[in-house]
């Protein structure tokens, strides 16, 4: 007996490759964000030797890990910002009529394979940065890297879910929530030490971007300020997921209560 989610995602992937021509273009296009992000760091470091206490390799590592984490989340749940489209088409009602949780159906309703280019490019950069930095590799460090990327992806995914939940109330709310989702992504790519205190608080406790890449990299490179904090990304991810799921449940209740 087939797992319904596997079936749904496989169906979705087949539907995507039907449009093969523009597929290649979109994969290339998705590299744009990687190039511009990396380019930014490159130009900065052409002028100065360190940023926020990190050298070029370390800064690139922060960028790459943040980039890969976000791209993974975008791959799986990036389509959630199209919730208004699903609402308008009555797709949500179709989801309610099926014996599966609505959020799970929404997540498996699409998969943005074309964003995969970003994941590959980011990984390539990360691997290069790791190779050229002097990390004191231990099994623990390896585990840290794996945990970091997974938690980072989970954290960003939670933001996509939370942003989608807002759409139940603010129909044109995509722009507002985008500022948190994409703002969080952008912030995660830089060392949090460059931020002024209020901004640092914002990106540690409200949008825990600092936990995605900066703190783990400090721990990875045995730099001061890291230590146990670098291992806290799963905690941050869990916290955001709790908020996101509560928001989602409230949003769905609002939808079935207020009617369409």
């Amino acid at each position, binding site marked *: 007996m087939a797992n319904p989610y596997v079936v749904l995602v496989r169906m979705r992937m087949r539907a995507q490759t039907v449009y093969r021509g523009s597929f290649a273009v979109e994969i290339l296009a998705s590299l744009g964000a990687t190039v511009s992000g990396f*380019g930014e760091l490159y130009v900065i470091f052409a002028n100065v030797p360190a940023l926020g206490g990190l050298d070029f390799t370390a800064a690139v590592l922060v960028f790459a890990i943040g980039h890969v984490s976000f791209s993974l989340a975008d791959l799986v749940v990036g389509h959630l910002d199209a919730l208004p489209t699903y609402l308008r088409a009555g797709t949500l009602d179709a989801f309610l009529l099926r014996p599966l949780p609505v959020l799970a159906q929404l997540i498996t309703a699409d998969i943005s394979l074309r964003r995969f280019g970003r994941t590959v490019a980011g990984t390539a950069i990360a691997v290069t940065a790791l190779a050229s930095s002097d990390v004191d590799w231990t099994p623990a460090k390896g585990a840290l890297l794996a945990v970091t990327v997974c938690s980072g992806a989970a954290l960003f995914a939670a933001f996509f879910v939370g942003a989608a939940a807002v759409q139940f109330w603010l129909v044109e709310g995509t*722009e507002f929530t985008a500022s948190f989702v994409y703002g969080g992504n952008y912030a995660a790519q830089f060392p949090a030490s*460059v931020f002024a205190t209020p901004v640092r608080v914002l990106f540690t406790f409200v949008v825990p971007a600092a936990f995605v890449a900066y703190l783990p990299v400090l721990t990875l490179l045995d730099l001061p300020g890291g230590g146990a904090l670098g291992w806290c990304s799963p905690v941050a991810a869990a916290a955001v997921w709790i908020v996101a799921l509560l928001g989602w449940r409230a949003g769905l209740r609002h939808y079935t209560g207020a009617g369409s």
Partner: protein
Amino acid sequence: MRLWLTLVGIGFRRWSTYRLAAFAGAFTNSVFGLIRAGVVTATVAVAGGTLGGYDTLAGVTYVWLGQALIGPVYFFAWSELAQRIRSGDVAVDLARPVDPMLAYLAADLGRAAFVFLPRGLPPLAVGALVTGLALPGDPLGYALGVLSVALAVVVSFACRWLVNLTAFWLLDLRGPMTLYLLVTNILCGLAVPVHWFPGWLAAVAAASPFPSMLQTPIDVLMGHAAGWDAVRLLAVQAAWAAALLAAGRVVFGFGTRKLVIQGG
């Protein structure tokens, strides 16, 4: 001339219905501004207090002005013309008594004028509160600055127009548009001031219209380039605007001829 002004007015009014979206966009700009301000401050600090002619305060002012100008100068995908070409509606534009390119330009200027306040002021306000801004008190500087912004909008429009014209020959606009946005975002000085570019990149940027879209108006507004320097930069902007618009007119001619011959 009156017709032209009417079109600008229509462009202005059309965008007033997107007030909420404009403010939401300003919110995003502010968030990004906070991040960039932090990066710029740290960079300048490591460089010893000044870099490329910017000290810390100038650096953050640069960031906030940049964020404020994103909306008016429009650093996003614009595909209106391409869609009309693909659907054939462009024939309607050709039949009208106004030159299509100038008509769209007028609408774009109207749009820029409208979003200037809701999209431009909030980031500047946030900047003033959080990091401080260093704007000159010289009225001539502001006058030249506004003129420079207007020219920047024209240059941006002309570039977007040219990219859209590829729709006459290519099936999918997304490739050229994405490439255009990528190059623009880097070379116009949005992420990092053009003055900070390493030699080879600075040369590439200088040979392109992109700095005229953002770096120039910021420099003029900040008073970084004053007096005759500012006038020189404005002349460069005007030259690019004229050249790109002319190219746009020519390529548009080629495109419409192809359309008419092939029967759209």
